[in-house]
């Protein structure tokens, strides 16, 4: 599955945004558990939650940023430089960590977008930081701010609830690329839609180079200019995948269960047939009760059928009892000319 495949290779993305809203905050928790389990070491910058909340991810370090704002008692006493120094001091003993900011929305709402970009660039250039993951609440910011942030990231995962109203977006914009495509079967229920957005990166010699230390996110972001050094039109192309999940409880944990469209379509057709059979049984039971009561003289009207009427009734073929011819539909998969290897799309 695309989203979880990306999360397994997140070390190759200098800057990743995990975007959620109020209805899908639990999806971010699940994603962070997955990231923490895959990363070599995970450190969290805490702006919103108790520090104890991060214990479920077994982090190397939790840096509490809330105390800085409490000391200022509502002011903004510290510039981003001071915050960067706080992070540097706490992380200097580690060689390579994945830094998770929870949440970037808090930083942006307090310091503004420009200061946030400066903060991210400074953080990414720390020697011990291998890659940065930011949790972003996309229902808290204006569209222009979201578009600017999405351009900055090298990978993007956006969750939306099934009940969310999709906003109309400008054609061709990054925000429009984050809009989930309609599901294959509209009648199949789902809880959450997820759009994964990555930029196909240049490969040298068939293998991806290890990212340099302290990469500039802007050079590798979704908004970066594609470099067509090679005659490969796919380089720099934005790849967008839409998936649908159900939230289920497994082993006392909340999990994202991807929807199997094949099983869902089979269940849909079987369910339709079962519903028709049940309706026929119910109608037959009702007729039996009426005739039984009439034979006892309790019903003042006649429901008995003559022989001719019975023959005519038996010869009627009801619509739902008609046999349905097996479907002869065939699905042809026509991969794109540059998409020979399905996993090649995830080579970041």
């Amino acid at each position, binding site marked *: 599955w695309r989203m979880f495949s990306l999360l397994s290779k997140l070390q190759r993305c200098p800057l990743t945004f995990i975007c959620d*809203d*109020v*209805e899908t*905050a*639990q999806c*971010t*928790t699940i994603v962070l558990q997955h990231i923490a389990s895959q990363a070599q070491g995970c450190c969290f910058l805490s702006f*919103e*939650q*108790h520090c104890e*909340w991060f214990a*479920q991810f077994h982090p190397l370090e939790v840096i509490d940023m*809330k*105390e800085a*704002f*409490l000391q*200022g*008692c*509502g*002011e*903004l006493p510290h510039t981003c430089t001071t915050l960067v120094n706080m992070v540097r001091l706490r992380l200097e003993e580690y060689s390579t960590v994945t830094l998770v900011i929870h*949440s970037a*929305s*808090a930083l942006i*709402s*307090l310091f*503004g977008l420009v200061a946030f970009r400066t903060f991210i660039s400074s953080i990414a250039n720390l020697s011990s930081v291998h890659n940065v993951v930011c949790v972003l*609440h996309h*229902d*808290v*910011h*204006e569209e222009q701010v979201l578009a600017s942030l999405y351009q900055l990231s090298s990978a993007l995962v956006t969750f939306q609830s099934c009940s969310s109203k999709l906003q109309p977006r400008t054609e061709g914009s990054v925000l429009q690329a984050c809009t989930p495509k309609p599901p294959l079967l509209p009648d199949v229920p789902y809880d959450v839609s997820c759009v994964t957005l990555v930029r196909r990166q240049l490969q040298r010699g068939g293998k991806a180079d290890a990212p340099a230390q302290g990469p500039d996110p802007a050079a590798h972001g979704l908004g970066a200019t594609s470099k067509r050094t090679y005659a490969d039109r796919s380089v720099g192309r934005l790849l967008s995948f839409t998936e649908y999940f159900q*939230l289920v409880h497994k082993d006392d944990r*909340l999990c994202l269960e991807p929807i199997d469209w094949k099983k869902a379509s089979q269940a849909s057709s079987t369910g339709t047939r079962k519903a028709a059979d049940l309706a026929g049984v119910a109608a037959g039971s009702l007729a039996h009760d009426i005739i039984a009561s009439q034979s006892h003289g309790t019903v003042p009207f006649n429901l008995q059928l003559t022989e001719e009427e019975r023959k005519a009734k038996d010869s009627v073929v009801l619509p739902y009892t008609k046999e349905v011819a097996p479907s002869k539909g065939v699905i042809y998969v026509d991969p794109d000319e540059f998409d020979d290897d399905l996993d090649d799309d995830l080579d970041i």
Partner: protein
Amino acid sequence: FFSPCTMFPGLQTQLPWGDSEVPAGELLLVTHAATEVDGRFLLHHFLTQGLKVGGHAVLCAFHHTLMHYSSVQKKLDVPLETMSERLHFIDCVTGADEGFLYEPATAPLAALSQRIVRQLEAAGPSDAALVLVDDLTTVCSLAPLQEVLAFVWGLHALAKERGVCVLILMGNDVPEEAHLVNMLRHISVAHFDVTALASGYSRDVTGLASVAIRNPVTLQRDVKQLQYKVLDSTVRFGLRGSIPQ
């Protein structure tokens, strides 16, 4: 020593924390469509609960004076005078009795935050310290958005770091403040949304109260729809579709 709060039992049974406590270290959000319905009865519920369990409360009133809150509490049969030593009222409407009047240069919101912290420190350690802001929509009309955000995040840090329960009342019918409301929903453990009946006036039901409780570990929200009826001396709650008893 202090009896559990039974002010609105129909509401209290829907909340995961017990009768004899307020959720320490958490932020509660109450929103209402201010032009159609008033959700301040919830503020009185939590204020009474916080004071009855022996805690201290700091009430920052931007909308009403102390006389209003006292008269409402009298009607609810829980007079404020009996608990006045543990209630710290900051009059932000008239500035009377060492209140607070916002001025961008001389009295910014940061000064109010510092005063709240000093009040709580002077009151001493308490398991049920409560800070109430009535209401944030009025604050947004006075101060610029950036200053309001800093004020909110300061209260949030106060809740998390000092174990204080913070309750914020806000209108949800101002489009320019929709993003601020969403941000508050993200950082609050419980969101009470009070709305009027869509079908209009009903003799038995005043309005709807949607109660969204967030799981502290998974962050999943559990939403319940309640109906409420405002009476002379109490507010009755019931499940949606039933007459509040």
